[in-house]
């Protein structure tokens, strides 16, 4: 799941560095993108393109592997075979997505181990929503349906981007996500239309998650030169606001139709088709993304434990003469 706009850090430095790029190569590169052709790993590309894509795909990959944890915890507890098998398969897919995305990022020159190292050392970010816990089964269902839904909005947009390996990974990911979305919806509907206990559980989980969901796409974009360039290069495919609007339009009606409410009195669709809502608490969002959320420490600790516990296995499997070569595509 988990598109990358949710970590939304387009570089803020004053210059784009474009003045240092070869103007002829740059023009060819831009012409290729304008023609609708994809960029492949061995093509010439501007530094800014490489840097921004690496960061974006890497954060997307981190979000998948970290995102496997809040749902992974519910595998053993999932009620009944049907849910259990699906929950396992879904969490497995998320780990698989991480693998696909790390591979795509590797084609840009950063090794997977370096990315994993940066993750466990707190040097890179992942989608902020995974810094919140899933205290009940209903919370897990909310992620399966609505966080995945948000991610799909992002991923469908990004799949039309300009970088070949990222598109290839996203095509596969989107195909798998179709199941996540249906499964999550199915589980939420069962609870929302179920017994009073189930309804209450689901409503409470939704109330807990809604503020985080509203921050999922990040704050409104500041329309900087950077943003414009990245959109022209088809690195950033839609503004955060456009994604949020699309998400609300697709899913709020589906939430309401099963009798659930959303904890925002200002949420409504205007006559012009635009959704209105209370501005999310971006100060709190910043606080959490910078490490002070309920689960930040645990997420990193768990990843680090997985790394450390697995180190002997990787040491033993390593062939001394083996040379790492980054994937081709």
């Amino acid at each position, binding site marked *: 799941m988990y598109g990358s706009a949710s970590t939304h850090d387009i570089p803020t430095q004053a210059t784009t560095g474009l003045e240092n790029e070869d103007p002829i190569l740059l023009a060819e590169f831009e012409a290729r993108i304008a023609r609708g052709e994809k960029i492949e790993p061995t093509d010439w590309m501007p530094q800014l393109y490489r840097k921004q894509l690496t960061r974006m795909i890497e954060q997307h990959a981190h979000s998948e592997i970290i995102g496997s944890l809040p749902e992974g915890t519910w595998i053993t507890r999932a009620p009944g075979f049907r849910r259990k098998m699906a929950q396992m398969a879904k969490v497995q897919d998320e780990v698989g997505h991480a693998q696909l995305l790390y*591979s795509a990022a590797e084609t840009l020159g950063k090794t997977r181990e370096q990315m994993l190292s940066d993750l466990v050392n707190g040097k890179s970010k992942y989608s902020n929503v995974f810094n919140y816990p899933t205290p009940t089964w209903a919370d897990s269902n909310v992620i399966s349906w609505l966080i995945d839904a948000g991610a799909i909005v992002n991923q469908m947009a990004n799949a039309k981007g300009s970088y070949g390996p990222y*598109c290839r990974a996203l095509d596969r990911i989107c195909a798998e996500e179709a199941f996540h979305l249906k499964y999550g919806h199915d589980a939420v509907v069962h609870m929302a239309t179920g017994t009073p206990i189930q309804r209450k559980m689901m409503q409470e989980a939704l109330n807990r998650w809604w503020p985080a969901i509203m921050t999922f796409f990040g704050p409104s974009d500041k329309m900087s030169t950077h943003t414009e360039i990245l959109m022209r290069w088809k690195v950033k495919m839609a503004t955060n606001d456009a994604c949020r609007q699309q998400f609300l339009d697709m899913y709020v009606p589906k939430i309401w139709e099963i009798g659930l409410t959303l904890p925002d009195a200002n949420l409504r669709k205007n006559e012009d088709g635009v959704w209105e809502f209370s501005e999310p608490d971006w100060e709190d969002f910043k606080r959490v993304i910078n490490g002070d959320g309920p689960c930040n420490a645990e997420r990193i600790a768990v990843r680090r434990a997985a790394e450390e516990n697995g180190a002997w296995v990787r*040491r033993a499997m390593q062939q001394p003469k083996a040379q*790492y070569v980054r994937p*081709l595509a």
Partner: protein
Amino acid sequence: MLFSFDPRISRLELPEAPSLPTDKVALDQFPTYEVFHQRKENAAYAYVGPVHAPEADVAFLFGKEQFSRRFPCTGMWVVLTSNIRVTEYGDDQQSVYDRLPLLPADELGTADAADLEAYDIFHLKKRGKAHAHVGQVQAASPEAALQAAKAAFGDQRPVVNVWVVRSADLLRSDEADRDMWTTTPDKKYREAIAYKVQDRIDRFKQEG
């Protein structure tokens, strides 16, 4: 001890404060293998993506689950990434073969049949799509194989990029291993189509 809602994590008994950051050792980095799969009987093998693995047999184990668990599959090939000879990338609509310089015969190695080996050729038809297998040629080197590929498949277009792999470097699933994939289509629980909930929603609205 770290408190967690996750019983699995509680069982790991992690310390409250994480240990000092440790950079991963470079050693951890395995080589990469590129994986190709066959979607159905007689279909061309197509590129699906890479795996990290210490050796080809492990790459096969990994590739099988990462790339063939969700969709029908009848066979799989893996090859060490560094064993793939890659041409430059052309524009969509063109053929990179057109830009391939014809090598003089003496640079292509001997024409001695004993030195010839099979090479597998993969084409990329469009940027952003996946390489697909087009066939085999006999040649004495990867460069010669590329020339032979141009002769054999050069009339196909567009060809944005070509991969050349010595056939002996490909680890291929056995015919006898096909049954490893027989139950994949039965695993309906991981398909969107298995979740039909509209009736329940309609009933709920009616009872509303």
